[in-house]
Each structure stands twice: as structure tokens, then as C-alpha cells.
């Protein structure tokens, strides 16, 4: 397994996607004037989410719901359990203010679509089969943790005397969690994939499938720049959060892999399941937190999710979760 792990690590680190990620980091650290315009970032996001949604939906229609409901439930369970244990760790071990702990735990309980996509890319590259309908897990795991995090944060604010009406805030956080752009795109494309099926996917494959891996590489160039810009804030967030940003995904990832294995996924599928558990949201969760918990300091959660966990996961995490999945199988 050790030799396999090393080989997988190398395959991952030398893939164009990862190398572009590193280029983005280097460009930022070297103070290059390279910058993606925001419309390009948004376009790439829209593309990646609809593309995996479509593919996942077509696979879902193929597999049938009978094979999907159990891991889906397990995914939702993870989305509730992860924010709870990480909240406790951040609050009582890390001694972070309650509202910050709540905001951060929402990020780690929710998921990062790009990390998931990088994982499928990695599996495809090394020829490891996986359940294509895993995108459905991604879709259901985005929101529950956000709701849990907002509830935790609001209760904490209550106790500290801020008596803002809870109902409205919960409602708008729920709305963001269900109709935020990333969820709408992903779930929408998933349903379209189910309805249009394989034939529909084939008709649009020249756009949604053929260029996919290259688009991901380009997107990771941008993500490298975004992540590297957070490095300057590493000092501000303190040593605990830096350690947390690596230990939490490892725990969640390994736990997720084992759970995925237990609910009957293949090694590739269990690895994706673990990757989802390990990943920290940096699109849906920050938007929801600024809306529902503006009192939480965004430097904490953005730096942890974008500056530490995301780079860790897509470099070392992916091969690690695969190794665990292969060992568990």
C-alpha cells in the first residue's frame, strides 16, 4: 500500500490540474500581475457545476434510486455530525469565540465542489473506477451543515444577549442553502441529467464532457492564486486553526471513507465520499455566513477553508483517502 500511495501521490501531483494549481500559487507569491477577471471565475464555476451535475444525473438515472438512498442518507448524517464535533473542538480545544466556531464548523460540514471534481479527475487519471452518481452526495451534503452552523451560532449569540429574531435569519439561511447559486446549478443540472438521460448527455458531451478536464486545470490555476492570497493571513488565524485545517479533514476524510465503505460503495466511491467529508465549503458556506452570521470573522473561515484545507486536500488528501479506501475494501 505504501508504494501505491507514493505512486498515487506522484500521479496526482504531476497531473496538469495540480501543476496549474501550483503555478497559481507561485504567480501570487512572486507578485505577478496575473489575475482572472471575476466574470471568468463565475463562468468556470457555472461550467464545472452544471457539467458534473449533468453527468451525475445521467448516471443516477442509470443506477436507479434504490442504490443511492442509503449513501445519500449517510451523507446527510455526516453533514450534521461533522459540524457538531468540529464546533466542540473549535470552541473547547481551540477556545475560539462561539460565533466563529459556529461559522467554521459550517464550512467543514458542508462540501467543496471543486475538491470533489479534483477527486474524480484524480480517479479517472489513475484508472480507478467509481460511481458516477456520487455527484448526488455532493448535492445533498452542501446544505445541512450550513443550517446546523447557523443554528449553533444563533444560540450562542442569544446567550450573549443579542436577541435578534431567529425566524427570519433561519429562513434566509435556509433559502441561501437551498437556492444559493451553487446549489441551484448543481441540483438543477442533476435533475436535468436524470430527465434528459444518457441521450441528452451525449448531445451536449462536446461541451460538458470533452473539455472538462482542461477547464478544471484552468480553474485550479485561479484557485491557486486565491488560496495563496490567504497565506498572508495564516499568522492572523493562529496555530490552532492551521493544525485544525489539516487534522479535521484527515479525520473527516478517513471517517467518511469508512462510512462510504460501510454503506456499500466501491473503493472509488468510498474515496469520493471521504473526500466530500474532508472538504470544506468555500462558496456556499461563506455566502450563507455573511448573510446569517455576519458577526463571525471571515478571516478565520476563509483562511482555514481556502488557505489550508483546500490545498491540503487536493495535494496530499486525495491520494491518502484513496489509500484508506483501498485498504478498507
Amino acid at each position, binding site marked *: 500500500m505504501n508504494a501505491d500511495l507514493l505512486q498515487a501521490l506522484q500521479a496526482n501531483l504531476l497531473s496538469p490540474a495540480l501543476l496549474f494549481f501550483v503555478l497559481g500559487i507561485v504567480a501570487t507569491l512572486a507578485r505577478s500581475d496575473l489575475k*482572472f477577471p*471575476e466574470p471568468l471565475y463565475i463562468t468556470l464555476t457555472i461550467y464545472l457545476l452544471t457539467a458534473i451535475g449533468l453527468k451525475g444525473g445521467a448516471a443516477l438515472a442509470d443506477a436507479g434510486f434504490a442504490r443511492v438512498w442509503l449513501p445519500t442518507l449517510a451523507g446527510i448524517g455526516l453533514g450534521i455530525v461533522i459540524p457538531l464535533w468540529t464546533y466542540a473542538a473549535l470552541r473547547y480545544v481551540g477556545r475560539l469565540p462561539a460565533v466563529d466556531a459556529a461559522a467554521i464548523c459550517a464550512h467543514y460540514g458542508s462540501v467543496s465542489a471543486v475538491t470533489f471534481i479534483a477527486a474524480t479527475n484524480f480517479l479517472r487519471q489513475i484508472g480507478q473506477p467509481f460511481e458516477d452518481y456520487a455527484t448526488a452526495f455532493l448535492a445533498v451534503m452542501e446544505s445541512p451543515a450550513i443550517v446546523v452552523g447557523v443554528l449553533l451560532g444563533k444560540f450562542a449569540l442569544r446567550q450573549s444577549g443579542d436577541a435578534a429574531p431567529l425566524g427570519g435569519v433561519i429562513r434566509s439561511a435556509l433559502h441561501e442553502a437551498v437556492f444559493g447559486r451553487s446549489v441551484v446549478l448543481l441540483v438543477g443540472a442533476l435533475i436535468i441529467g436524470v430527465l434528459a438521460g444518457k441521450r441528452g448527455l451525449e448531445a451536449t458531451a462536446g461541451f460538458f464532457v470533452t473539455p472538462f478536464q482542461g477547464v478544471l486545470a484552468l480553474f485550479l490555476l485561479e484557485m491557486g492564486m486565491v488560496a495563496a492570497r490567504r497565506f498572508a493571513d495564516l499568522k492572523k488565524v493562529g496555530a490552532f486553526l492551521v493544525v485544525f485545517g489539516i487534522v479535521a479533514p484527515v479525520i473527516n476524510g478517513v471517517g467518511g471513507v469508512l462510512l462510504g465503505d460501510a454503506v456499500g460503495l466501491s473503493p472509488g466511491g468510498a474515496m469520493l465520499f471521504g473526500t466530500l467529508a474532508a472538504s470544506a465549503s468555500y*462558496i456556499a458556506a461563506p*455566502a450563507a455566513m*455573511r448573510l446569517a452570521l455576519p458577526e463571525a470573522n471571515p478571516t478565520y473561515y476563509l483562511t482555514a477553508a481556502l488557505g489550508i484545507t483546500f490545498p491540503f486536500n487536493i495535494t496530499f488528501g486525495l491520494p491518502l483517502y484513496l489509500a484508506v479506501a483501498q485498504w478498507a475494501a
Partner: protein
Amino acid sequence: MNSHPMTLVTIVCEKLAREAVTRLLRDVGAHGWTLWEVEGSGAQGVRSGDIPEFTNIRVEVIVPPAVAGTLLARLEKEFFKRYAMIAYESEIRVIRREKF
């Protein structure tokens, strides 16, 4: 042609505060607003304008002086400590007083 004094309130803040800010504008009774995306640098670091999480918006609203006072007061009380934000007012002159 007569032009009438009116107050222009300008808000520069993180994009993720957009909904909260436009809701406040409605609340205080503004009849309209103008908004666009900007980059910025301030006490809370550089906001580079390349991803929505790190973009600012600049909102402009023309209101009668009294409304400007209310608006700034509420911004100070409810927004300044929560969001990366600045706000200021300036005197302008408009033609159609009744529009604002």
C-alpha cells in the same frame, strides 16, 4: 432650469453584504439606487475583485438630507462592525426634486 440640493450617500462594502444593504435602502425609503463592483483596500485588507467572496460593491443612493441622516445612523449602528464597509455623504444638485 432650477436645480435642488439633495444628498448623495455612497457605500463601499463587501459584495456579500449586498442583500443586507439594499434591504436597508428600501427600509429607509430610498426610491432607487445604483450599484457596481469595485476593488478595494482598507483596514480589512485588499479585496481583489476576482471572486465574489473578495469583491466589493459601491452603492450610491440619492435621498433628501433627512433620510441620509437616518441611513448613515443605521449603517453605523448595524453594519460598521459586521462588514468591511465605508460610507459617506456629499451634497449634489438635482433637477427633479420630487423623484428622490
